[in-house]
């Protein structure tokens, strides 16, 4: 029963998954094109070029993955209300828990793949490439963490919107716009408190985004399990 639900959820998510796959291919291609027009980089050794390509691709995939996950999350539930197939699913044997678990599995598995690819690329860069300069600083790690937190915020709000609304388009729009609110809030807080250190501001933004995203997942799930309508 669960496998049938997963198969169906993969099918209803084919557009966001196709987008994620495209971005997975396009991101390294874009990095390669950008590298090919960088004359300084082209003069470096093959190993250094490979390192830059793998690290750059990993970073680009990590950034675009957040976009894909936000769209997927916002689409998963609401899309079945748009074509009223949620009504059909509601009278089949699986209960809401199972339906939601299947959707969460699809989202989680996609997130895992989209996280593992950049990790694998980074690992490969460290194994086979030649580092051109000093080791990547802790700042780089902070940036990646902040990007991930923004992604969680977008996906969480997307999930909540998908659980609540009857339009996947509106849910996707909300998911994409969601990080703006914590970003503006953090900017205003920094201005008000006179925080000038970018690392502090980044950490604050990551914390707010993470909290917003988690709240989105929790409240969305609670609403879905309690609502009367499919």
């Amino acid at each position: 029963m669960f496998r049938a639900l997963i198969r169906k959820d993969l099918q209803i998510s084919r557009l966001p998954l196709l987008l994620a796959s495209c971005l997975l291919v396009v991101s390294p291609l874009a990095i390669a094109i950008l590298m090919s027009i960088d004359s300084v980089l082209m003069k470096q050794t093959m190993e250094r070029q490979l390192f830059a390509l793998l690290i750059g691709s990993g970073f680009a995939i990590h950034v675009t993955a957040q976009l894909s996950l936000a769209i997927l999350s916002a689409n998963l539930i609401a899309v079945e209300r748009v074509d009223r197939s949620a009504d059909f699913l509601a009278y089949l044997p699986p209960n809401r828990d199972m339906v939601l678990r299947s959707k969460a599995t699809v989202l989680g598995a996609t997130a895992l793949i989209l996280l593992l690819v950049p990790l694998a690329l980074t690992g490969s860069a460290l194994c086979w490439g030649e580092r051109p300069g000093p080791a990547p600083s802790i700042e780089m790690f902070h940036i990646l963490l902040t990007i991930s937190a923004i992604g969680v915020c977008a996906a969480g709000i997307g999930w909540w919107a998908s659980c609540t609304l009857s339009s996947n388009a509106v849910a996707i729009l909300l998911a994409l716009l969601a990080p703006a609110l914590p970003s503006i809030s953090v900017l205003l807080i920094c201005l008000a408190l006179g925080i000038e250190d970018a690392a502090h501001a980044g950490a604050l933004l990551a914390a707010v985004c993470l909290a917003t995203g988690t709240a989105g997942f929790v409240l969305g799930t609670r609403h879905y399990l309690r609502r009367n309508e499919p």
Partner: protein
Amino acid sequence: MSDMLVEFESVSVCYKETLGIDRITFGLTSGTTLGLLGPNGAGKSTCLKAMAGLIRPTSGHVRILNDENFGVRPHVRQQIGYVPEDPWLYPWMTARQIVRFAAPMYERWDNELAEELISDFDLPADRPIRTLSKGTRVKAALLVALAHRPRLLVMDEPLAGLDPLARDDMVSQIVRAKSEGTECVVISSHQIDEIVRLADQVAILNRSRMVVHADLNELQNSAKRIEAVLVDGCLPKHELRQTVWRHINRREWSMTVYPFNESLVDELQRNNSLTSISVSDLGIEQIMKDVIRGDQQSCSVL
């Protein structure tokens, strides 16, 4: 444990500002086919949705197959077949894909029966559901509802919008399901003739309440129309407690009574000035109309 397959105990369902059903109580045992009748907006669909576990009652208790939490228990839901009023299924799937999707969800899914139904219903199995007419979509929904051999089959106006041949197909499949293990069928419809063909019990809903729930034959035999003519210048002095609906036009006094017995004619004659009185049978459609009109007149005893 009760021998009821379906039990409604003072069940009310409220939507945001409207009442779907109001304190409905009834029970159905194995072997029953209930025809649910009533005007649009009477609460039939809400009642059926509550029965299929699609909506939770605001108050009261619904027990299906002796389980009050049937709505969240897949093994109980596997024994319920539901055909909604306007089935959409997955519009991008074909009928065959719907079968492949639904089959693993039911322990008692019968692939041979599914194939047989596809052929009997003349379903275009390889065309997406969204390209099918409403009637064909209803057939596809009935296919999903029947192919797992449910113990309880709940259908919300499945005959609406179907041509007479398709209606016949549908009715014969429902009859066949009953003979092959479906223990209880609940069907709402405005097609009274089909209800009479299928049901052995009828329930009439009006203004969110169940105003009649009776055995079909018993209702047909016990509800009678009495036509009386009053003596010139006289008004009715005594009305029967069993009056469901009444209408007075000058001297002509018509009433539908339920349950009828011969002594009611004597009671009327004794207590009113009448020149003549006659009793006639009523069809289910007329009984339903009178019950609803009577409920609106608020003179009903039901």
